[in-house]
């Protein structure tokens, strides 16, 4: 399910490239966050034959991550730049900046996830990875009134953005992000809208920080690099199995 509010065409190229033989659906309003407790992408939910959730949303992958060439090239550039910055800092006796890529790779074991899925596919309720209903509810993440309000602000922001009321949309996106700072679908979605406008192209939506020199013109109180840098290691994709 694609959690993208910016129109069907944003998701279409990926779905068509994958040529899935499974249902491929759209969730433009990020219902999955309010309904299931999704807080990032990718997040995976396991549901059994009777419609019972046996694992609530968690980071999950089908296997090792493969990037398209353009993205792989950009990531390699960033890794080189980050390493150069790190060496510079050490040479100058300064504390090196946070390694963002290491932050994103920490936490959930990406290689183990598909094995666990296959185990459940084969063994069902006998799989040690399948949870009881009480365990599922307990593991589904905190929901305070602030978190409920974050979802409400996101819904308003989405509606206002699509209606062209940008400033009011940004106000609600910012309120949303303040109220549920560990919800990354709400954050990445919002940042990507402006990143895509400013940069465009194949990697436009992956641009979630202000461009150099444009920091004063960034409408959000947060951005991807600044927020990820503040995280405890392993908390962006928390280990759940």
């Amino acid at each position, binding site marked *: 399910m694609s959690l993208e509010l910016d129109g069907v065409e944003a998701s279409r190229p990926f779905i068509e490239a994958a040529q899935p033989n499974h249902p491929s659906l759209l969730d433009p309003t990020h219902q999955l966050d309010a309904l299931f407790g999704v807080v990032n992408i990718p997040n995976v939910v396991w549901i059994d034959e009777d419609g019972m959730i046996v694992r609530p949303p968690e980071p999950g992958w089908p296997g090792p991550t493969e990037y398209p060439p353009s993205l792989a090239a950009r990531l390699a550039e960033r890794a080189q730049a980050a390493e150069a910055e790190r060496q510079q800092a050490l040479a100058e006796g300064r504390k090196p900046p946070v390694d963002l890529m290491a932050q994103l790779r920490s936490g959930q074991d990406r290689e183990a996830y598909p094995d666990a899925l296959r185990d459940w596919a084969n063994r069902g309720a006998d799989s040690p990875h399948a949870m009881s209903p009480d365990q599922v509810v307990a593991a589904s993440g905190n929901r305070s009134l602030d*978190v409920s309000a974050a979802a*409400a602000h996101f819904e308003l922001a989405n509606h206002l953005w699509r209606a062209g009321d940008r400033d009011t949309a940004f106000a609600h996106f910012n309120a949303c992000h303040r109220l549920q700072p560990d919800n990354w679908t709400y954050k990445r979605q919002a940042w990507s809208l402006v990143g895509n406008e400013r940069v465009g192209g194949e990697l436009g939506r992956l641009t979630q920080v202000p461009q150099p020199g444009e920091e004063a013109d960034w409408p959000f109180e947060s951005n991807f690099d600044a927020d990820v840098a503040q995280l405890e290691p392993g908390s962006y994709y928390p280990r759940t199995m």
Partner: protein
Amino acid sequence: MLLDRLDADPIAFAEAHGWEIKPEGACKGEVCVPLPDTFALTDLTSRLGMAVVDEPTRDLWAIGPETVGGRALVTASAPDPDLVDLEGNPFRLSSLRGTKVVLVAWAPY
């Protein structure tokens, strides 16, 4: 859910959010929240711990999800929202009963 008025029908609202109104109150899965004999939408949102956020310039309110129990899920019984595919065709998760389902949330960003 977005509303342009807060005096909307509370029972229809409850059902749209997966809560069934029974003699015991509003029920979802094994959880029931008592309700007074007559109740307005704001009674329901208050009892279920749903945030109400307004955008006064547009006469719009958004109601957030329930917080009873303090967890994202009230029950392990999977919600069954109205979904659409790329072509706009409707789809429901409940159409997949009888098979295991792995629901993957992804995005172009």
